[in-house]
């Protein structure tokens, strides 16, 4: 039974500030639940550290809205002294000696890290089934996937094991599992949150973001994670802003666009219906909704394969068994490389490294990579055009609801197609937000994807919060599903 962890951050904050509960109460409840959980959402839990920190925080300043709130961290974000595995045999015993930038931010805000969440190996996948530690489960139906690659983080939040989790999103890896698990997940604008300490997959696409139960919580967490990092050259240097500031404002006059491709036949009809009924809701409340075309959306998966895998093949070259991570016994350097990488990486990671290497080889670089960058740029310009006329773009986050564990693993293309609606956002460096908008006939969550112009997260939260309030869904997983 949840005592506190099903409450919102604002409610928890009031209890903590008034002294009715202590941070330790939340930590103990979190560990009570996660130790009895069969979601396989965590790779590593850090109970001792969390309890120690909860005690330290008792006499600390309580003004931060996130003071004393437990948080789970995706296991590709470096945590000093706590192993960071990327769900890979390669890093099974890797303990970073520096915290990621976001971990500093998490600590500054007074949050308490309870553990490292399960994910696809090196964030490569859409189901979290490529994890070396086995797949996390969907709290709504434990025979189904939580999505990926931030599946563990989504499972933690939906399963009420912690109120907040951090995910990372290279081609939908926050938004897609958030949609599958019925939670709120934000991939902020590229550069919004420093990537220092995030173990790279596709460096030009990767972005860390918050995953929470509701929109307001999400905006609060984003407030704490942003800020200029002089040690990440892609970090944006902007004045501080409050991402909650537009929440509650009237949406009258907002101009919303829906790309035709996002409601084409690739999308499941139940999902399409739900999205269109949200469009009606918006119109009823004074917003305009237009159907538009954005260039190259249908090529998103191809672009992703070329760019993300090309970058990944290079980013993962450092795992050679020489300095850190898994190192196979061998008699020569070549054998060391071959054995370490053959044994240390799982098959999906190896497949992507090989595809990426092939795409960058010799003349292929021009034929594929350079061309992909051109198409990417053209897609970005097409989004820019749309944002001259519209405040926000919406559509479904996924083409289907979460499917059953084990499905799709034999069809590599299928898992990529899951992400066709979310990838364009990474390609264009835009922010993307998932909010739950309903359930299908099997009572599996359906998500709405809200896309904003660069650095307009506050506007997205405004719309998201409005829809959330109007729909007023019961997003609490039934406890019997949880046992």
């Amino acid at each position, binding site marked *: 039974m949840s005592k506190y962890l099903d409450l919102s951050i604002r409610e928890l904050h009031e209890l903590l500030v008034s002294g009715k509960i202590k941070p330790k109460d939340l930590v103990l409840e979190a560990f009570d639940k996660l130790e009895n959980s069969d979601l396989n959402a965590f790779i590593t839990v850090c109970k001792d550290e969390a309890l120690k920190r909860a005690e330290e925080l008792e006499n600390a300043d309580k003004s931060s809205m996130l003071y004393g709130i437990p948080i789970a961290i995706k296991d590709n*974000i*470096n945590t000093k002294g706590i192993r*960071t595995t*990327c769900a890979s045999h390669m*890093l099974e015993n*890797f303990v*970073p*000696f*520096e915290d*990621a930038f976001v971990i500093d931010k998490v600590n500054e805000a007074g949050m308490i890290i309870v553990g490292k969440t399960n994910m696809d190996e090196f964030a490569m996948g859409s189901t979290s089934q490529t994890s070396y530690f086995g797949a996390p489960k969907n709290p709504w139906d434990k025979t189904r996937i939580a999505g990926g690659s931030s599946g563990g983080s989504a499972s933690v939040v939906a399963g009420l094991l912690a109120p907040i989790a951090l995910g990372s999103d290279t081609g939908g890896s926050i938004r897609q599992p958030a949609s599958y698990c019925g939670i709120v997940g934000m991939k902020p604008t590229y550069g919004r949150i420093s*990537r*220092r*300490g*995030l*173990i*790279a997959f*596709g*460096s*030009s696409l990767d972005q860390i973001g918050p995953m929470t139960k509701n929109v307001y919580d999400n905006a609060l967490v984003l407030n704490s994670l942003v800020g200029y990092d002089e*040690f*990440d*050259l*892609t970090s944006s240097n902007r004045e501080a802003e409050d991402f909650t500031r537009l929440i509650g404002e009237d949406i009258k006059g907002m101009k919303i666009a829906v790309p035709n491709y996002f409601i084409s036949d690739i999308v499941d009809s139940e999902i399409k219906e739900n999205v269109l009924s949200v469009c009606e809701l918006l119109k009823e409340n004074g917003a305009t909704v237009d159907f538009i075309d954005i260039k190259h959306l249908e090529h998103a998966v191809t672009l992703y394969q070329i760019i993300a895998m*090309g*970058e990944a*093949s*290079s980013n*993962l*070259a*450092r*795992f*050679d068994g*020489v*300095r*850190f*991570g898994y190192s196979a016994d061998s008699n020569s*350097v070549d054998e060391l*490389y071959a054995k370490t990488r053959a044994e240390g990486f799982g098959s999906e990671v190896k497949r992507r490294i090989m595809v990426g*290497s092939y795409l*960058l*080889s*010799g003349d292929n*670089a021009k034929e594929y*990579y350079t061309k992909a*960058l051109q198409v990417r740029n053209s897609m970005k310009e097409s989004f820019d055009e749309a944002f001259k006329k519209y405040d926000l773009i919406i559509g479904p986050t996924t083409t289907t609801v979460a499917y059953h564990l084990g499905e799709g693993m034999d069809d590599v293309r299928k898992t990529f197609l899951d992400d066709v609606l979310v990838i364009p956002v990474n390609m264009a460096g835009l922010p993307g937000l998932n909010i739950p908008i309903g359930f299908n006939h099997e009572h599996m969550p359906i998500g709405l994807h809200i896309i904003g112009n660069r650095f307009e997260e506050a506007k997205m939260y405004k719309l998201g919060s409005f829809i959330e309030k109007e729909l007023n869904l019961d997003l609490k997983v039934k406890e019997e599903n949880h046992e």
Partner: protein
Amino acid sequence: MSNYKKTVGIEVHCELKTKTKMFSNTLNNYGAKENSQVNTIDLAYPGSLPLVNKGAINLALKAALILNCKINKLVCFDRKNYFYPDLPKGYQITQARHPIGVDGYVMINVGGIDKKVRIHDIHIEEDTAKSIHQTDKSYLDFNRSGVPLIEIVTEADMHTEEEAMAYLTKLRELFVYADISDCKMEEGSMRCDVNVSISKDDTLGVRTETKNIGSISSVGKAITAESIRQEEILENGGVIVEETRRFDEKDCKTILMRVKETGNDYRYFPEPNIPEFEITDDEINSVKSEIPKLPDELRSEYRTLGVNENNIKTLISNRELCSFFEKVKEFDPIITSNLITGDILSYLNKNNLSLKDIKLNEDNLKELVKKIKNSEISSKQVKTLLPILMEKGGNVEDIMKEHGMVQISDDSALQTIVDKVISTNPESVNDYKNGKDRALKYLMGQIMKESRGQANPVTVNKLLIETLNK
């Protein structure tokens, strides 16, 4: 005499003289304890991201300006991917698409003839770690990992060993003068790869690359050895294969390292962690203004001042002496250059010292030059005084007093000596009167001897002529 014409192109890597590494804040500290100058970026730890050293960009820009290159104002980097234990990231960050400088040239002079060596490009990259191989083990020192490098690539414009060596000497001279690199080949802060081909006509032959040659003179030897090897193959009906070789100093031969297969596949692509940026005209002008007088300019200036060629050569080849000379030359460049390249340099060489180790400074050297010019000190006295200045320092005037080097400039005192010498050397007086100039010199010498070198020669000369002509 061979019928073949050699064609040579050279790639030089120079480590930049920066405080920190190219893509991290670790110190660029040659000679430090192994693996002590490293952080997570240099070791490519997961989650690390590169920074950009603006100082290194400015040094590379300076080099590109000195080599008369067109400047690519858009600075961006690329990844060159390959596996090697000394390359921690599995890729090197380099400039493949937009090298900072292109289409430059360097003027060399061989046998009195000026020649232009064209520079294809100059680009910025990072050094690898250092592998230390022992019989059964290899060790890696990551101190060098990420040290800023510039690579300077020439066109295939050189045709003799002398031209190649003159180019390298010139390049080193320029970079040392402009404070871009130490260019110490023995420490690896300058490294040369030489491409050599031979041909009987104007078409270029197949080239080989000889890597990491240890000194400029070895570059000459390597070119000779490699062109002879190629000629022997061609003369015996063989074909040259594109390959990478190394130079064996002991046997004076090039040795095969690896045959180049279908071209290396480095899978270049733009470095996503470093956003491209523009160098402004202001920045370029500010770097330009930092470029000191370079050797060619100094040479012609010194010639105009009347400094002899030997002294010029010595000064230019020793940057420390040259910049010292620049500071003290105003009063009399000829005397000053003689002192610096003569007694001072030989003292330094003998004692294995550099200028900063000795007490001689700008002020006392200038004072000494003044005294020499005004003939207030004899050359013999200079020989005594200079070592004192170098060892103990101090004021020239004081030292002269202390060591009884005070000149007799008092006319009456000198007149007595002059009269004495004239009266004891009637023959010479006679010779002088008969127009023999040598006699005057002899008499001068006698007077100086009589005064134990303390007579002011200018005054003596004046008095002697006056007395003789009475």
